[in-house]
């Protein structure tokens, strides 16, 4: 419903030639020229995160289909969004996280997928087939998923820190806590600790979390830029808010580390495969997405990147050390209480940012 509404509003604006006075810096003409095949039919431009593909996957695809994949890398969703926002510079397949799928769909930046060209969709575990952020998988196929919880050093904590309390609202681990600097995650998980849903927060809720964070700030060592696993591994902090996949990686180096999803629930993210508007080779893009969802290919990717896979067929082929890893595939009350984050519009995002700016300056 929401998609339709905002798309209509945009198309009305577009119809009026962006009604308002002055300038507009979009390249609308650019994003219309999506076609099949195109000039160089055996090429594909893939925009992906670093170290986020199997070692031989791209070569295997070239062998199987004759299509050469040219991969470019981005480091954050914001970077990817900023690059595509002014018009697609020629990418055929992109890997945004779930909230950006929603954001890009709302901004009319994605092409609907043709499910008949992706038969390997059958490999995806059923719980990933109809997420709130993309009902019916209209625009995106799940590639990996991950969840924010607490990584900790077993020898330095009194007991398993299975509540957000130990990060958000306690001086027990004073000076040994690292939290994420990302405003939306910080506010929403704080709200979760206070018994609210991650979705649909009001300004009063945001202010309440902000005040709690201002109280907690003297106990916090730092707000990290998604390098919490390094801070934990190096002994700078003993308890850190971080993604399960990141903690799983450093746990291989240090057996004293562990990960738990607090009982209030964590925040689930999913990275997905989408075709942006203006993609020059839509046919190849579908072929490539279908290839990545293949069981053997998925297995090879999981072996390299060690992130949880939503691909049931690929997971079944993986060794037990991955399948039964409680950090890669967490279960229990915390996991059951976890939710997907949603993109709730620029106003909410701005409110999150301002609250965190205020908190950091307080």
């Amino acid at each position, binding site marked *: 419903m929401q998609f339709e509404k905002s798309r209509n509003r945009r198309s009305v604006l577009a119809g009026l030639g962006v009604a308002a006075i002055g300038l*507009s810096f979009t390249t609308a003409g650019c994003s219309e020229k999506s076609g099949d095949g195109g000039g160089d039919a055996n090429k594909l431009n893939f925009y992906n995160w670093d170290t986020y593909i199997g070692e031989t996957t791209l070569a295997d695809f070239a062998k199987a289909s004759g299509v050469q994949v040219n991969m470019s890398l981005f480091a954050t969703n914001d*970077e990817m969004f900023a690059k595509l926002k002014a018009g697609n510079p020629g990418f055929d397949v992109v890997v945004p996280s779930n909230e950006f799928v929603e954001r890009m769909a709302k901004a009319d930046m994605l092409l609907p997928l043709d499910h008949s060209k992706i038969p390997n969709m059958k490999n995806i575990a059923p719980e990933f087939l109809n997420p709130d952020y993309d009902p019916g998988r209209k625009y995106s196929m799940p590639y990996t998923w991950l969840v924010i919880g607490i990584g900790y050093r077993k020898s330095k904590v009194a007991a398993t820190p299975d509540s957000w309390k130990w990060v958000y609202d306690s001086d027990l681990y004073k000076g040994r806590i690292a939290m994420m600097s990302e405003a939306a995650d910080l506010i929403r998980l704080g709200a979760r600790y206070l018994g609210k849903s991650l979705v649909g927060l009001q300004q009063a809720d945001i202010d309440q979390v902000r005040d709690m964070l201002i109280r907690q700030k003297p106990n916090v060592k*730092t707000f990290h830029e998604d390098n919490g696993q390094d801070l934990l591994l190096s002994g700078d902090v003993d308890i850190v808010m971080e993604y399960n996949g990141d903690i799983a990686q450093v746990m291989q180096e240090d057996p004293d580390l562990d990960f738990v999803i607090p009982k209030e629930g964590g925040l689930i993210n999913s990275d997905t495969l989408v075709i942006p508007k203006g993609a020059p080779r839509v046919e190849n893009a579908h072929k490539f997405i279908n290839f990545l969802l293949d069981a053997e290919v998925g297995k090879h990717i999981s072996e390299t990147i060690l992130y949880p896979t939503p691909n049931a067929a690929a997971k079944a082929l993986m060794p037990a050390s991955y399948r039964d890893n409680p950090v890669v595939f967490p279960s229990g009350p915390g996991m059951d209480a976890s939710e997907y984050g949603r993109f709730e519009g620029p106003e909410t995002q701005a409110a999150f*940012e301002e609250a965190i*700016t205020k908190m950091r300056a307080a």
Partner: protein
Amino acid sequence: MSDEGWRQERGTLAATLGPPLFWLVVFFLVPLAVVWAYSFGQNAGLTDIRISGTFANYARALEPLYLGILAKSIGMAGLTTLICLIVGFPVALAITFADDRAKTWLLLLVMLPFWTNLLIRTYALIAVLRTEGYVNWTLEFLWNRLGSIWSLEPFVPLDLLHNNAAVLFGLVYVHLPFMILPLYAALDRLDRSLIEASLDLGAGHFRTMMQIVVPIALPGILSGILITFIPALGAYLTPDLLGGPDSQMIANVIERQFKRANDWPFGAALSFLLLYLTFILIALQAMLQRRQAQ
């Protein structure tokens, strides 16, 4: 001069001035103008910015919250500049008085850090300062050696990283060459006989320094202060990586507007506030220099 010659000279002028001028306009002034236009705009939908001529972004940038952050950043940058000046002046002076061979090497040493990316240098500082970093590691080693002689409390690592002192240290480390090089350039032109005369006439070393060297080197000192202060004011990597929960500077806020917050108009207004401030400082420097010249 004949008309021919003048025309030729004009051609030479255009040929030498043309490319840099083209570069400056296309890759600097035009993008800057676009961002300036953004600062009077507002978000229209998720991807478009409408330039509506509003001053709302500037009004928001002048709220106490953001002014406070700006004041804190000015304080940090000012302190950085002061420390750089105090540390950099003797270094520049020493390089000036070194013999020619040593001079080349010393200047090379000052410039060497520029050959390494800022991000890598910052991560190197993290490795030095962290709880189990090189400094704490060395201190612990020495402490334990002493502990085998006298009985001492167990070693408690120093908190060197993730606080404002770490940010200050990082900023000084990064910006020291910006101070030393203009100071050196000014001091190197100094007429040595003036110093000799001052010393011959009975002034002490300190007095000679303050009454002869400093006034003559003042233009160099001023430009050193300026080109240290301005980039320090806009630093965002250092507070992000070395800082703690209280180390937010204005550039961190600006960065977030362009990335996570996706509020380019407000980010543009904050950037231009910083730019206006820089213009004022440059004007101030020019004024001071003119007064000194008179």
